[in-house]
């Protein structure tokens, strides 16, 4: 193994169709029009010296090292800023160029500390490399000249340092922050020798607007911006390309290693989801893998009030299996089930559902997608025929109008948000439907053309009203509808949406959105060119989540915004492998590839391969499992990598359900909240310790590669296999690739997928089969998967979660950039510096009415329960709406959320809870009791001491 060195072509790739031919140092080269000379030279292997250029950024032309001579032209132009021309003859190395470059390098070095041997970038410094490349042997200006401005090293950021004395003012960091990340946190302050990179208004990095995406650190050619891990450990010696285990963007990273220690995670330029960019979580927050809280030994206990007892793997597995068998013998086959994890690989989720269906002999398997994007599955399958988004991420580069509904991309999907922002800076228009004023509403160089601040719970009314405008103002793309959709259904739908009760003026009364905003947004989406819709959990986590998804699908069909680049309907998936866990058959009613368990032919295929009969009836969904547990008919649960006690709604009900079970097996990295009610703990492995695949929000299947041995002893799929074997349903996989081969054999949309193909191509987007051997970036191009697109009537039904005198405010929940879901991983990293606790956002008007000041403790109460947390007063939320995150177990925000759920899928209605907020002195009684329970249930018994005699 060695360090993967990606080629830096110096300037971005031109996407022009027309080609240009030229000669570089006598070598002929043909490149797309608009390519720089620097890039053309690199295409034939000639690396022109450079410092300010890198192919992640537009050419800047400041360092004056990359000069070339062009036959027939005067002067020595910069090769990074000079585009190629037909017939051009370029010389990259002449006596004149050599003299100039040496002179330039002398100037750089005369102003740079010469502590190379002890510098953290020694061996990984482009300045060092260029000094060598230009043959610098002396510096006529001396080595002790005036050094660059040195206000001291800024170590405020937990992950990287900023040492201005080493800065060569190439502006790569400033440009990366602008062009790649789109935050504009950096600038160059001062002039001449006083020039210095300045976060915000000469603040520290931590105090500035910097979001710690790492783009500046990655761009820096010296040690000016350097990872603290590199400073501590040294430079890496080998690297492995793998996939991030945080959000659904699915960024590809190079895990740069020294032995089995991760030195740093560098975004991989060839990663087709992230194109070389990253966020603070994927780039830096991997320390949880080695956190002291990780539990690495299996543990069991008879009762949840007993302390845990560390046991061997054999004993733990045997105990779990015997308990499941005992329960099934006593209470029946359907009394146990399993939950797969969207944090685990495709292969691992496939095995868990296989264990449940074939080992337990029922279909009681579900996944955390139940509580996030299950309505996407129902809605898009119904309307288009496929339970997935329609586009690849690259598609956004062709969008003219971007509509974001119920998503907060800069926090939830930051790397894709950066790509969106880039397109918006190029001129695309922006429509946002969100109760909160999310960052995308107004951020540097971006302002939403329309922000529709709708009242939580009124999505269907507002989206249907957008359709009203499109239909009644003659903005329907009739030729698309006639050829691609069921026209009878369209006519029914058009008649429905055209009714007066769906007019913006009528809907304003329920949604609070001014009618003119709805009309303007609808016209822009219908007439603005390529219109793309991106949506998140603000759409799905409602009692009408599936209906909203279908309303969105209707909009795209009515305007013809489907089936080509730049358009489409795109769910932004929450966790890294939500798409994959659904694809793998984690839902209780369907096997892999979204085929219902009642389909005899499908079941027969699985039965033939697995050698056991399968149940033709759907199993229990997670909320049904908990209801059944409380009711007494569900007694045992195998949970792989999900903390349902913290993440699922109505915590008290969840706790009652878990407490009613006789065997709860949790397979996880830490003693998460659910383990308070567990009887068996099986230590899980991190994404750094396993092989497999994740599938991201664009249906892209990517490799996860092991960079260290599992600290717990086994990869997660191996643990499931051990359990299955102990249950009496043998599994004999030697490698996850064999599991994927089985998936491919059983699943038409995955028929062409294999680890070999993924190694060759880097990634593929399903469907990947004989019809599309290299995958399918954009779906429904020539027709919908279901045949004709289906328009669905989307009647607005107000949620039964009503505000009133007792609970007059509406609570909506979400997540923030630095933390991830229940925080089990990110709370165990330095990311806590940005988010130490969940806060309640409340509008100044509502705060004043309640005598609440910023930072005060407040009690947040609903009919389900109450908790307390500190308040942040902000106008990001509208009057009458409050917002919080659910990252911290001490808050347990879900003790407040209710049992209401989506009509089609039981996806919980997290986004609408009627609450009251009042001043408080601190934690509620429930929080204190929970903390005590939690402390007691995490006790681990001392190992028994065996006498020497």
């Amino acid at each position, binding site marked *: 193994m060695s360090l993967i060195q990606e080629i830096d072509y110096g300037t971005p790739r031109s996407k022009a169709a027309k080609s240009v031919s030229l000669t570089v140092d006598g070598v002929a080269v043909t490149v797309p029009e608009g390519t720089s000379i620097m890039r053309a030279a690199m295409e034939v292997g000639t690396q022109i010296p450079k410092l300010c250029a890198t192919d992640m950024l537009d050419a800047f032309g400041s360092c004056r090292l990359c000069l070339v001579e062009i036959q027939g032209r005067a002067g020595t132009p910069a090769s990074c800023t000079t585009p190629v021309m037909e017939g051009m003859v370029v010389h990259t190395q002449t006596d004149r160029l050599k003299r100039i470059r040496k002179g330039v390098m002398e100037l750089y070095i005369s102003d740079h500390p010469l502590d190379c041997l002890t510098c953290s970038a020694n061996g990984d410094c482009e300045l060092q490399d260029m000094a060598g490349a230009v043959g610098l042997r002396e510096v006529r200006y001396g080595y002790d000249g005036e050094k660059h401005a040195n206000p001291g090293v800024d170590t405020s950021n937990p992950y990287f340092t900023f040492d201005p004395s080493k800065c060569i003012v190439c502006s790569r960091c400033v440009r990366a922050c602008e062009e790649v990340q789109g935050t504009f946190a950096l600038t160059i302050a001062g002039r001449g020798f006083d020039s210095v990179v300045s976060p915000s208004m000469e603040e520290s990095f931590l105090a500035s607007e910097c979001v710690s995406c790492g783009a500046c650190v990655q761009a820096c050619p010296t040690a000016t911006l350097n990872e603290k891990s590199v400073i501590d450990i040294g430079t890496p010696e080998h690297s492995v390309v793998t996939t991030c285990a945080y959000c659904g963007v699915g960024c590809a990273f190079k895990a740069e290693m020294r032995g089995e220690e991760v030195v740093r995670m560098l975004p991989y330029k060839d990663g087709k989801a992230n194109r070389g960019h990253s966020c603070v979580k994927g780039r830096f927050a991997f320390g949880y893998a080695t956190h002291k809280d990780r539990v690495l030994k299996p543990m069991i206990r008879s009762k949840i009030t007993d302390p845990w007892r560390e046991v061997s793997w054999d004993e733990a597995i045997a105990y779990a299996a015997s308990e499941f068998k005992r329960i099934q013998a006593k209470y029946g086959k359907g009394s146990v089930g399993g939950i797969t994890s969207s944090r685990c690989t495709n292969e691992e989720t496939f095995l868990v559902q296989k264990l449940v269906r074939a080992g337990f002999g029922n279909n009681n398997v579900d996944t955390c997608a139940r509580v996030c994007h299950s309505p996407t599955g129902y809605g898009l399958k119904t309307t288009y*025929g496929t339970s997935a988004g329609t586009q690849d991420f690259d598609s956004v580069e062709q969008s003219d109008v971007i509509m974001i509904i119920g998503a907060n991309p800069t926090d939830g999907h930051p790397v894709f948000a950066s790509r969106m922002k880039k397109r918006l800076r190029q001129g695309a228009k922006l429509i946002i439907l969100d109760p909160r004023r999310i960052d995308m509403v107004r951020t540097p160089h971006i302002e939403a053309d329309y922000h529709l601040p709708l009242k939580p719970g009124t999505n269907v009314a507002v989206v249907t009203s957008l359709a009203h405008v499109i239909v009644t103002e003659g903005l329907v793309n009739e030729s698309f509808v006639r050829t691609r959709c069921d026209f009878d259904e369209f006519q029914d739908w058009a008649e429905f949406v055209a009714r007066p009760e769906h007019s913006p003026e009528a809907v304003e009364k329920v949604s609070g959105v001014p009618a003119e905003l709805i009309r303007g947004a609808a016209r822009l989406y219908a007439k603005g060119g390529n219109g793309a819709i991106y949506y998140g959990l603000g759409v799905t986590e409602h009692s009408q989540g599936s209906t909203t998804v279908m309303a969105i699908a209707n909009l795209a069909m009515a305007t013809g915004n489907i089936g080509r680049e730049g358009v489409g309907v795109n769910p932004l998936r929450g966790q890294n492998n939500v798409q994959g866990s659904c694809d793998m058959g984690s839902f209780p009613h369907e096997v892999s590839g979204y085929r219902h368990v*009642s389909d005899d032919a499908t079941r027969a295929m699985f039965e033939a391969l697995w050698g056991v009969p399968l149940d033709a009836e759907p199993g229990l969904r997670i909320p049904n499992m908990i*209801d059944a547990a409380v009711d007494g008919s569900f007694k045992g649960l195998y949970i792989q990598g999900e903390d349902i006690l913290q993440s699922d709604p109505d915590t008290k009900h969840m706790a009652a359900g878990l407490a009613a079970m006789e065997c709860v097996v949790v397979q996880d990295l830490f003693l998460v909240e659910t383990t308070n009610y567990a009887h068996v703990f099986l230590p899980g492995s991190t994404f750094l310790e396993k092989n497999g695949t994740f599938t991201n929000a664009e249906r892209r299947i990517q490799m996860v590669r092991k960079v260290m041995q599992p600290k717990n002893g086994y990869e997660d799929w191996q643990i499931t296999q051990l359990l299955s074997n102990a249950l009496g349903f043998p599994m004999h996989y030697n490698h996850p690739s064999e599991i994927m081969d089985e998936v491919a054999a059983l699943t038409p949309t995955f028929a062409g997928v294999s680890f070999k193909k993924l190694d060759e191509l880097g990634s593929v987007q399903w469907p990947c089969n004989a019809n599309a051997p290299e995958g399918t970036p954009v779906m429904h191009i020539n027709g919908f998967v279901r045949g004709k697109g289906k328009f669905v009537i989307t009647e607005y*039904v107000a949620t039964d979660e009503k505000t009133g005198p007792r609970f007059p405010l509406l609570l909506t929940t979400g997540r923030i950039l630095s933390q991830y879901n229940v925080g089990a991983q990110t709370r165990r990293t330095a990311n806590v510096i940005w988010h130490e606790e969940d806060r309640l956002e409340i509008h100044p008007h509502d705060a004043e009415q309640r005598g609440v000041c910023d930072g005060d403790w407040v009690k947040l109460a609903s009919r389900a329960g109450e908790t307390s947390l500190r308040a942040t007063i902000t106008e990001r939320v509208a009057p009458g709406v409050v917002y919080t995150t659910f990252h911290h177990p001490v808050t347990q925000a879900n003790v407040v959320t209710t049992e209401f759920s989506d*009509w089609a899928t039981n996806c919980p209605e997290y986004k609408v809870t009627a609450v009251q907020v009042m001043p408080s002195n601190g934690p509620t009684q429930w929080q204190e009791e929970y903390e005590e329970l939690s402390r007691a249930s995490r006790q681990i018994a001392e190992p028994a001491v065996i006498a020497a005699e």
Partner: protein
Amino acid sequence: MSPDRLVYMANQIGKFFEVQRSDETVPGIANHIKKFWDPRMRKAIFAYLDEGGDGLDPPVREALEQLKAEAQGRGRPTPETSFQGT
């Protein structure tokens, strides 16, 4: 399973299908419950139906009657509808 909860869920499904094409309302409700509800949930709501089924909206009641008959081998199989969501 609590009948109140099951009735609430069934009526929620009913509210969606009530506004779809009339020939898909009852089959849509029946199909949805058949495809997505675990047998013990169906059994529980059938039992509740036998006790009078208070609170069930009319098309939901009709759909459940059909499903129950099918489960008992009496009625015709629930026809497929155009709602093929998963």
